[in-house]
Each structure stands twice: as structure tokens, then as C-alpha cells.
């Protein structure tokens, strides 16, 4: 299969969908003239014009609010948050407007808005340009949340998000943009809500998503040498998360580890662990381990930033101690 970058995969999804449906447009800061700060919009305005690929002012509440309003008027907006870190600026538009409009108005409308949110650590991004805040949205009914880990899923999930008639937040990792992977030719969708058993195994389940899938795979490889057969699940969607796949795996392996780059406390891992401790505790042969960032903002200096990162050794060590 051909290999393209994550960034190119999102571009393909965008242009295929925009060709298909004229009501789709995209807006955000620095996406048109420059093609996006990560190049993830390059060429789009050339094909679709500056009307459908719009640079905006630095006005996140207007960008998000106008996305919602345009959807109410029959459009299918994709809004770009520049950095996921800036979602706090328009949090009210996200959680009090976008998430609630369909429900509180009794289902009078559909709200096909996609929010694209580049997240995660970059080198030296520091406290306000490195965050992973997906877990907040797990607690906000009315939004779906997807978070691809590789180019193929990036394309398929973005297409699914755009076609969904509900608001979908699409978290895309800044480091992953540049990474290549096999992407099928032609039309396909990765369904929202379905996790991917990326590697089957029988001894322990690692659940992860986004860039941490790489560490999950690496840990699995190392552990294989010690005879530990790891099942690796890529969550892909955080809301609604795939309860069946998780339970099935845990019932098989009897051991659960969750890995994400976001802060451990109150992270997505907490919900997954709690879910399993509620639904399948009797199947567990070991504590549920969570790996996530320490409880601090992201520090700038490379030494500190490194210390902030999840370490494969820690995952490996943690898993070994489960046996």
C-alpha cells in the first residue's frame, strides 16, 4: 500500500469530502494563506477558493460560535482550533452551545460541526502549546470525540466526522502530522465509536490512542521477548468509547493498562479503568495500571520536558510486575 503522512491523509479526507458536498467549508487562523501552521491545509484554498477555506481573526469564540451558527443555517463547517490549548477560550461555545443545542431544543436541529484540535507535546512548546485535554470532553454529553493514531485512521475518522450530523471534536497530534503510514486508496470510512484491536495478545491489554500507540507497540515488542503476549487496543474514539471491545479484551487477558500522554489524574484512563472496575473486576488478575503525564503543566526545558514524557521502560516494568 502507498505510504503518505498523517497530514496528507487529513488533506485527502478534506478535499474528497469538500468535492462531494458543497456545504462543507473550513475556517481557522492561518489556514488559508499559509496552508496551516503544520501544513495540514496546504493546497485546499487553491482547489476550493478562499471562500470555503477561510482565514479568520484571532477570535476563537467567533470561530467556534460561527461554526455552530453556520451549521444551524445548513452548512457543514470544519473549524480549526490552531492548538487544542486554545479551546479554553471558546469553552462556553463548545460545552454550553455546541454540545447542548440539539438536546435542549428538543432535537429541532442537526449540528454537523467538526472541531479540529492539534494537540500533544512538541519540543519546547511549553505550558500553553503542548496540552492534551481530551478528557474534559468525555464528561460533556452532546459531542463525539475521535483521536486517530495513524494516517489511515486519520483519513477515515476525519471523513466519518465530517459526515456525522453531530458535533465531533477531532484531536490530531502535532508530532504525528509528519509520520508516514499505509493509507488505502479510494473511499473509506473509519466508523466513530469502534476501537481497533491493533495487535492481538492473550496476557495483558494495553489501551491507548493517538501518539501513545507507538509506545504501546514498542512496549508490546519488548515484552514479547519476555514471553508476555500483549493485546494492543487503539481506542480511536473517546466519546462514545467502545465498551464492548474493552470488556472482551480484558475478559480474555485479565490485565489492563491504559496509556495516554495527557495528565494521568482525571484523564481518559480514569474513566476506562473505572468502567472496567465496575463491569469486569472479577476478571482482573492484577491492578489496573494507568500511564499519563505527571500532575504539572508542561515545562519548557528539554530535560524537564523529557522527564514529563511517558517512558516505555516504565510501561514495561509496570506490566512485568503484574505477573
Amino acid at each position, binding site marked *: 500500500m502507498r505510504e503518505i503522512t498523517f497530514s496528507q491523509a487529513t488533506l485527502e479526507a478534506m478535499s474528497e469530502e469538500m468535492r462531494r458536498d458543497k456545504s462543507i467549508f473550513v475556517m481557522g487562523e492561518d489556514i488559508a494563506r499559509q496552508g496551516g501552521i503544520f501544513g495540514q491545509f496546504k493546497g485546499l484554498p487553491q482547489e476550493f477558493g478562499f471562500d470555503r477555506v477561510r482565514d479568520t*481573526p484571532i477570535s476563537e469564540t467567533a470561530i467556534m460560535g*460561527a461554526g455552530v*451558527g453556520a451549521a*444551524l443555517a445548513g452548512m457543514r463547517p470544519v473549524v480549526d482550533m490552531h492548538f487544542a490549548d486554545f479551546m479554553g477560550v471558546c469553552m462556553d461555545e463548545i460545552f*454550553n452551545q455546541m454540545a447542548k443545542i440539539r438536546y435542549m431544543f*428538543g432535537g429541532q436541529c442537526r449540528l454537523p460541526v467538526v472541531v479540529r484540535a492539534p494537540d500533544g507535546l512538541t519540543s519546547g512548546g511549553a505550558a500553553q502549546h503542548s496540552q492534551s485535554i481530551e478528557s474534559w470532553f468525555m464528561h460533556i454529553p452532546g459531542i463525539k470525540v475521535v483521536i486517530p493514531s495513524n494516517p489511515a485512521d486519520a483519513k477515515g475518522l476525519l471523513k466519518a466526522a465530517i459526515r456525522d450530523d453531530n458535533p465531533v471534536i477531532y484531536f490530531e497530534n502535532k508530532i504525528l502530522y509528519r509520520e508516514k503510514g499505509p493509507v488505502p486508496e479510494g473511499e473509506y470510512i473509519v466508523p466513530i465509536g469502534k476501537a481497533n484491536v491493533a495487535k492481538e495478545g492473550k496476557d495483558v491489554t494495553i489501551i491507548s490512542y493517538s501518539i501513545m500507540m507507538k509506545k504501546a507497540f514498542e512496549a508490546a515488542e519488548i515484552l514479547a521477548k519476555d514471553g508476555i503476549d500483549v493485546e494492543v487496543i487503539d481506542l480511536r474514539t473517546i466519546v462514545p468509547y467502545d465498551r464492548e471491545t474493552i470488556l472482551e479484551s480484558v475478559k480474555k487477558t485479565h490485565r489492563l493498562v491504559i496509556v495516554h500522554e495527557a495528565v494521568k489524574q482525571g484523564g481518559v484512563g480514569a474513566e476506562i479503568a473505572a468502567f472496567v472496575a465496575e463491569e469486569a473486576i472479577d476478571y482482573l488478575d492484577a491492578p489496573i495500571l494507568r500511564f499519563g503525564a505527571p500532575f504539572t503543566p508542561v515545562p519548557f526545558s528539554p530535560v524537564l520536558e523529557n522527564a514529563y514524557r511517558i517512558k516505555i521502560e516504565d510501561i514495561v516494568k509496570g506490566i512485568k510486575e503484574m505477573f
Partner: protein
Amino acid sequence: MTEYSKELLTYFYRTMCRIRLFEETVEKHFLNGEIPGFVHLYIGEEAIATGVCANLTKSDYIESTHRGHGHTIAKGADVNRAMAEIFGRKTGFCKGKGGSMHIADFSVGMLGANGVVGGGFNLAVGAALGIKMQERKDVSVVFFGDGASNRGTFHEGANLAAAWNLPVIFVCENNKWASTTPHGSQTSVENISDRAVGYGMPGVIVDGNDVFEVYEATKKAVERARQGGGPTLIEAKTYRIKGHFVGDPELYRTKEEVKEQFEKNDPIKRFEMKVLEEKWMTEKELAAIKEEEEELIKKSVEFAKNSPFPDASEIYEDLYV
């Protein structure tokens, strides 16, 4: 002096009476304990929604506020379903999920009241963007209070609407109060319309208790917007006659102040005086309209009260498509 068609005059009077009677009725039933939640009445401000919406068609949009009954009615929503929503019934516009603060009727372009002050600005701007991209001739109106004009969302929405030349009418209902704080104490300008300068858009002031003035100013703004002329900010000066919400102890002002304002500026009285003086309508015509509206509102309460509450199981409906 402009001449007005009988049809328009009737619309003005009918709509203002409908809103007034609706609100008085809601107040009564709220105080009776039949309506839950928070209710903010539009009494004394009827001329604004009425004068503005007289310029709109069903395919135009409005974004409303926490004080949204008047906007809903003026935009042409069915009063039965409006009343039923406020009573929390299944037959309400939102099937009882919204209530007073989240009343909406998408079928007539009323895109929703909002419990977040200033939450509507950018929704309206986005709806206008949709209109423009679809090459429609419609407009998008956002109602907001003097208090709401201090929200950052006003600024971002106004800038975007102006920079992108979108068909938005910003209608500030300056009723001199933001909840318990008088205008001027927390707002740095006397006239909200002055803020239009910062976005290069026209800013006009009208007497918000005069439905004719509101109508004329909006007409101009709407025509401008429909022709691609971009947004306008209209400030309608009025006064909040009732407490901020039903049940407000109103510790922050005197009864006399309110009484004086209402006597001087009741928009319905002023309309009646004007049309009688100008001989545009007769006492009899006015009385007949009022009676019809009384009947309508009475029926709406019956409708609401006879409607079932939603079933508990419906809690899980309408979240996702």
C-alpha cells in the same frame, strides 16, 4: 410622515398585545408555582421585537436571549407550543427539555433563547455566514442586552461580521439594567451604539418604546444587509419594567422609578395614542385585536396545561442524531 398599511399596523398592535398578555400570563402562573425554573419577562420592551421582526421573513434568523418570549412570538412562533414549553410539556417546542430560557422555534427561524448572556452573538454571525455562502438574501438578527454588550463575544462577533461583511443586525435592547446593575455603572459608554465605530459599521440609536422608530431603523439595516452592505448595530433605548426575573426582590431600585418609566413609556400605550391621534386606527379596531389576543393566550394556557409532561424515558432522546 410615512404611511403604514393597515396590515402592518395590525401586526404591530397584535404582536405587542400578544407579547404583553403572554408575559402577564406567564408571570401569574409562575407565581402560582406552575412554572419551574427562571423566567425573565419582556414587558415594556415589546416594541423592539415587534418593530424588528416586522422586517423579517421566516427564512431570516434571529438569535435571542434569556429574555426570549417576546422575540419568539414576534418571529411568528405558535403561542401554544411556546406556552407548553414554558410549562415543561411534551408539546412544547423543545419537548419540555428547554423551558423559558431555551425556547426556540427553528421552523420560523427563531434559533433559540440562550441562558448564557452574550452566547448568541456568534451563532447569529455564523448563521449569516451560512446565508452568505449559500447566496441567500436572508439576514440574521441578534438581540442582546446592554449588559451583554460587555461580553467579549460581542466584540468578536461584531468584528467578524464587519470584516466579512455579513448580513447581521445587532439589536441592543438597552433597558437600563443588567440584572441588578444600572447602565453606566459597569458599562464604559453611555450609548452602546458608539461601539459600532470600532468595527466600521453604522451604529444608530432609536427610541425602543416607539415601534415605528424601531421598524424604520431596522428596515434600513435589513435592506442594507440584504443588498450585501454588511452589518448594522441598532441600539433601542427602553426600560426594564419588571424585575430581572419573576421573583426578583428588586432591592436596587425604587418602585417610583419604575412606575414613572412605565407611565411615560409603555410602548403599547404610546402606539395606541399615536394611531388614534393620527386616525390610523379606531378604538374599536384596537379593542377587537386585543380581545382576539386575550382569547389566544387563554387558549394557549389551556393547551399547555392539557398537554402531558414528557415521559421520564425521553431523557435519553435528542442528544445525538
